[in-house]
């Protein structure tokens, strides 16, 4: 009896290690990646749930993937940040070293601050590979979207550092 219980506990605790199981699950993530990369061929190698390691447990999942039958591997991080009142979802694609290739906004919910979804504004994060990012200096200010812009500028370095320390060296 005790063994069964311990087994049940083990299974359920293992389940808790993926607290963002419903946050961009593989099928949805692949669809999104195919759209972002304009390809029909994305091959997921592994999924990692990083939520428990991110501040305020913002849902964050990473996929190691290949595409277009190329040998290079990449990471796709689906994560979220908070604007003034609402969370927004975005996708960070990095190379195998954790250097950002692109950032794109997937879901912006609030009526205000949607300016940060601008492709041009998000392109400022491209080639970022670690270190401090300062809003208004390294990343230009965006009027009318201050809270959202500050929060994504604060959260991206955290996610990239986590990716590099926990996954890149694997």
């Amino acid at each position, binding site marked *: 009896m005790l063994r069964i219980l311990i087994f049940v506990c083990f299974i359920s605790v293992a389940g808790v290690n993926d607290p963002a199981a*419903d946050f961009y699950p593989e099928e949805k993530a692949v669809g999104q990646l195919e759209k972002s990369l304009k390809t029909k061929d994305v091959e997921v190698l592994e999924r990692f749930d990083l939520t428990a390691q991110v501040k305020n447990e913002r849902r964050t999942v990473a996929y190691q993937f290949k595409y277009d039958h190329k040998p290079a591997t990449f990471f796709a991080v689906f994560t979220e940040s908070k604007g003034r*009142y*609402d969370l927004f979802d975005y996708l960070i694609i990095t190379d195998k070293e954790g250097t950002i290739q692109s950032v794109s906004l997937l879901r*912006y*919910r609030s*009526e205000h601050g949607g300016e940060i979804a*601008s492709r041009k504004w998000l392109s400022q994060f491209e080639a970022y590979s670690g270190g401090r990012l300062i809003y208004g200096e390294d990343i230009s200010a965006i009027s009318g979207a*201050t809270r959202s812009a500050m929060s994504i500028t604060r959260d991206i370095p955290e996610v990239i550092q986590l990716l590099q320390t926990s996954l890149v060296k694997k």
Partner: protein
Amino acid sequence: MKRNTKTILMAALLFFSVAAMAQNTDNNSEFNAAESLLNSGSNLSIGGYAQIDYNQPFVDGERRNSTLDIHRLVLLFGYRFNEKTSFVSEIELEHVQEVYVEQAFMNHEFLPWLNLRGGLMLVPMGIQNEYHEPPTYNGVERTNLDSKIVPTTWREIGLGFAGRFDQASLKYQLYVMNGFNGYDGAGKFRGSDGFRKGRQKGAESFMSSPTVAARVDYYGIRGLKLGASTYLGKSQSSLYDGLDKDDDMALAQADSSAISIAMLGLDARYRNGGFEARGQFNVANVSNTAEYNDFTGADLGSQMLGWYLEAGYDVLHGVQNGQRLVPFVRYERYNTHAKTAGSLAENKSFDRTDVTIGAGWWLATGAVLKADYQFFDTAAGSAGGQFNMGIGIWF
């Protein structure tokens, strides 16, 4: 004893495993309810902003008392029904004792570039009518251009579309809205502050003809945001209500009690490093003012025009302690009698120039202490000055 320990251990294990499973599968019910309303996962948002002012006017040869006022305290309640549909409301307490609803609209997103929005909405004209929370602007008081020509906080009930184009760094708003009450037994407009007294604010408002408000924002250049707004339509008049369609006399009288407004606004905001600047231009062409003034005895101008330019520098720029200290200067010109029609002479005292010099100390993004001095001048002579101090918050 040993048996008891084992039973307790088993019960505890069972409890934890069930609890862990419940947590894992049930993200949205009890788990969220247990957390506070401000939790990021909650569908209900609570926020607000407030402005507490101290104003000391100075007029040559006169002694003046200062005023201290909780100018406005606004509470925001937002509710998100699902990923696509939300409701936003702002309840305003003005000067402590007047209660208003500042916004109350529902938004439904079909696509990021196509949202249907309806209810009591801000007219998207200029910078401060939409972004009027004190920590978003320099100076204790809002700009006078955004009081005398754009009558902030200008809001009416309407319906329309809003959206954004991420590729082009553009967003737009397009609404059909109720217009100003220009006549309800007496004229509402006047020369000194144009349409301000005609705002209906969604309070048992009446409509004789709808108006259109539109705005486009462009933010594709780093640090810069450009906006263009327009507002077109007639003012509303109670004389149209119950009007006999064959009664030409009555119709002519009703027509004299309404004006047509074509307002245009251009604005820009720029921030780079510690430097920040903004500017705005507004012009309102008003037709039928000669008839309106004859009929109501008002002194409304046929054109109102104004602009301001402002620059500031964050001296704590680079310190990275989350604070900002921004001295600024603003030059503002606005004339509610830029043109007049009929026999109405231009009132030179409505041709005004304000110079504001001051500073804001942001202790946090949403909390600011402000102080400034304003020099008021008119084409008819100086109108004195005013020292202001204020506390502004936004959360």
